[in-house]
């Protein structure tokens, strides 16, 4: 059975419907890419999984349990770690406090996170709002890992970062994948995303329009669904 599976999820912002039936699944140990142009519902899908937007239709099943309608912190406690779009650390806390606040479970510790991201180890006492964009991104990933999630969700984790930093982040994600971490990742840079992903889902206007292996996503399909 899938670790995470969404079936026909429909979500609204007030009166306007954003998701019209999203299907998605992530197996244990798998890296799944969620793709689509701007405004097609990727972030709304993630918000719906976390319960920050309450879906009005469809079902979301995580680790064998229906999670639609639960409170966001309950859903997170069951093992979903979110790296939100735009990094969103706690700016008024230090790096160490940002990490320790989230700590849950025993596998991922401060020591392991700083081993994965040595830059964070050098800046433990610094405020999150004094970090560079890339470092904040590392902190956001580290914070999500500190909750020892069964599923890590990354929303636009490399957006707006320098190429060198992007490589660091992708290298870290590859390490996590090798260690068997299940990951759901949203990203726009296909050349970096596709080699890491095991499976892809493409959204268009709030509906899942493609599901398959990265190599099944031909240049023609890429142009049709993702080209600008």
């Amino acid at each position, binding site marked *: 059975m899938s670790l995470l599976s969404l079936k026909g999820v429909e979500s609204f912002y007030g009166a306007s419907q954003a998701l019209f039936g999203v299907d998605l699944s992530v197996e244990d140990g798998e890296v799944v890419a969620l793709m689509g142009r701007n405004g097609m519902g990727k972030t709304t899908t993630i918000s719906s999984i976390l319960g920050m937007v309450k879906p009005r239709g469809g079902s979301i099943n995580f680790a064998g349990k229906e999670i639609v309608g639960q409170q966001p912190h309950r859903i997170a406690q069951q093992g979903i770690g979110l790296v939100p779009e735009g990094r969103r650390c706690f700016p*008024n806390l230090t790096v160490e406090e940002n990490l320790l*606040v989230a700590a849950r479970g025993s596998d991922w510790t401060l020591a392991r996170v700083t081993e994965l991201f040595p830059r964070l180890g050098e800046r433990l006492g610094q405020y999150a709002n004094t970090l560079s964009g890339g470092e904040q991104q590392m902190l956001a990933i580290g914070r999500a890992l500190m*909750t020892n999630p069964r599923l890590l969700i990354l929303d636009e984790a490399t957006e707006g970062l320098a190429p060198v930093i992007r490589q660091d982040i992708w290298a870290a994600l590859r390490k996590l994948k090798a260690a068997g971490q299940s990951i759901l990742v949203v990203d726009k840079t296909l050349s970096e995303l596709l080699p890491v992903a095991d499976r892809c889902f493409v959204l268009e206007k709030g509906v899942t329009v493609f599901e398959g292996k990265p190599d099944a996503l031909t240049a023609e399909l890429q142009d049709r669904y993702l080209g600008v």
Partner: protein
Amino acid sequence: MAALSRETIANGVLALLLLVVPLLAAASGETFYITLATRIVILALAALGLNIALGLGGLVSFGHAAFFGLGGYVAGILATHAFNGEALLFGLPATTSMPVIWLVAVLLCGLVALPIGAISLRTSGVYFIMITLAFAQMIYYFAVSWPDYGGEDGLSLYVRNTFPGVNTAQPLPYFLICLAVLAAAACLFWLLRGSRFGAALEAARQNTTRLSAVGIAPFRIKLVAFVISAMVTGLAGALFADLNRFVSPSMLSWQMSGELIVLIILGGKGRLFGPIAGAMVYVLFEYALGGITERWQFFLGLVLLGVVLFARGGLLGLVAGRARHG
């Protein structure tokens, strides 16, 4: 030795002043100044309690006078019953022992703060301010209209309550008791702020959605902070009643809630010694200007305006720079 930060030095100076000035006053027989210092210490303790909710959690409670007054009434009512040899409800014996009174005050304030917090924390911003005010006013009017304990006229304590091994009737020993309680509360504040709970509380002030995304319920964190905050303020109320040997509904009034907020803003929000600096300035203004004009609060208002406009970190911020936790 590592260089001390300017805030640590400022804190040290304040702590030293608070200890040395009353000792000098005692040596020269000026007991009035000891009472003044005791007033500073107790108001600082009350504001320190509020600082847990307001400074760390960003919960602007405009109803903390309720807990201050409740603590005061616990001291007043227990002492009055004990003095008259009457039992309390259910035949429980009354007492004049401070430690017991403190325990009852703290527990009662915690019990009252729990439902008030649980209801108020469903709102935020200006609604939170108003709903905490509403609860405090309810308790205020209840006290005013309850003739058994003096109603509007308040309740006098015949003698100051007792503390084992200490002559509390003397100003200096009583001051030292209050100072020890303040020191303990400051330790509690410091430990809380440095703990994981403190970090979660500051995170909740910053962004509740992010906090729930890492699996922590912001509501519970804020509620616990609100309750602890009320307990500390309630303890200060019990001490205040013993200082004045008098309790009245004015301790429960909204002016008192406002005063506590003013102390924090004057001194420095979220800072360990903020309430202490605030209480010092407040009480000294009250004493120095209060002797010259009845309208001393006008000048305090000017100072407050100056602090809000030019020293957002409060007076401690002026001395020590930006707050560690901005």
